[in-house]
């Protein structure tokens, strides 16, 4: 769709007009940055940090629920984690190792691991 055609749509036209009007009235900033400005920036940063940890908390919580952790345990488990742990594992859980055990290996690969176990490279079958 061409831009001229787009502009004919009332909604788009309205937005464009509103944006240009806003542009005209935007104050021109120059020179020093005053203290209230810095204070606002710092406070926004603090709020962002709070938001980040809330998001991390929510993200880890959702992922863990998706992994079958029961709803009755999830709060305890999330609360056991520190802020920095939550931030570290946010969006990482899919890649993190989950220590379980070696059972459930595809049949075709078993032979290779038997061999590798004998060679001492792996320890998939502990009694070999």
């Amino acid at each position, binding site marked *: 769709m061409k831009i001229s055609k787009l502009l004919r749509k009332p909604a788009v036209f309205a937005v464009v007009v509103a944006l240009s009007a806003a542009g005209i009235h935007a104050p021109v900033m120059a020179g020093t940055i005053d*203290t209230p400005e810095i*204070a606002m920036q*710092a*406070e926004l940063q*603090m709020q962002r940090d709070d938001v980040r940890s809330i998001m991390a908390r929510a993200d880890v919580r959702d992922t*863990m629920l*998706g*992994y*079958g*952790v*029961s709803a009755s*345990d999830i709060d*305890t*488990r999330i609360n*056991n*984690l*520190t802020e920095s*742990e939550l931030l*570290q*594992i946010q969006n990482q*859980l899919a890649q*993190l*190792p*989950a*220590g*379980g*055990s*070696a*059972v*459930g*290996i595809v049949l*075709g*690969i078993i032979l*290779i*691991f038997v*061999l*590798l176990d004998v*060679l*001492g*490279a*792996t*320890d*998939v079958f*502990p*009694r070999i």
Partner: protein
Amino acid sequence: MIKRRSNVCVRLLVGLTFTALLSACTSAPQSAALRQQTPPEFTAPVLLRQVPFYPQELYQCGPAALATLLGASGVQVTPEQLVPLVYVPEREGSFQVEMVATTRSHGRLAYRIAPTLDALLSEVVAGHPVLVLQNLALDIYPRWHFAVVKGFDLERRKLILNSGLYEDYEISTAVFERTWARADHWGVLALVPGSMPAQPEAAPYFSALAAIEQDIAPALVNRAYVSGLQAWPTDRNLLMGYGNRLYAEKYAAAAAIQFGKVIAHYPDYAPAHNNLANVLFEQGQQERALLHAQEAVRLGGDYLENYRETLHMIDPGAE
């Protein structure tokens, strides 16, 4: 079509085997070094008999290994009780971060040891079993597994683990090293607050302590700080953390002395000036408080806005 696919399979298998053979023949440098020259403290075999054994249920080496570790440190807990805290059903395993968090929630510092066999063996000699993560298979086909190292016999080149279904499982030091290296040499102790690792390092000790502060009784936290400061009397984080403890427990005078110590060692550390200013202000020492608040603002840094607030509280007219 089937033929081509099986060709691909064969090539994959050959490649996999070849890679693994290469890695089998190399890469156990620490055990090789230990074999060539065994340090005197490791010549005698060690087996920690107080370590309990819980055979793991399917996939649940995490809860079993953690119950083993906690049990040895004096916390009686069964794997079944730990399943709701560390087991992740869809992943058929447990995450390291929750193993650590659950160690803390049972009142034990989760101290990450240095990534060396030397550190691992030193802890076992000192009576500390070590929770380890291993990748029993290969980087390209990982099989993650938690176990507890509880002994060794270097003359026979063996480590002794409670692992999976096996109590006193003997594994060659070289094989262990390879499986452990694939899991980034991850090893954790469960320390009673106030006790120290055999090979203590300040950074992991402080991070273990800071993480458990909210979970255990204040007296235990203080004990752990005192032990840490005995080992590292000038560690900035421990000095500062202990000051914050004293302040939180309303020992204002002691806290002021403690923050003063931090400043004596680290005069450019703004947070210490800021906290000292707060304590002094509360104690009515306006002038000294003002000096430190000004110094914190002058030094600036990450928490500048907090320093400014402190300064304004003490001297509302300050710019």
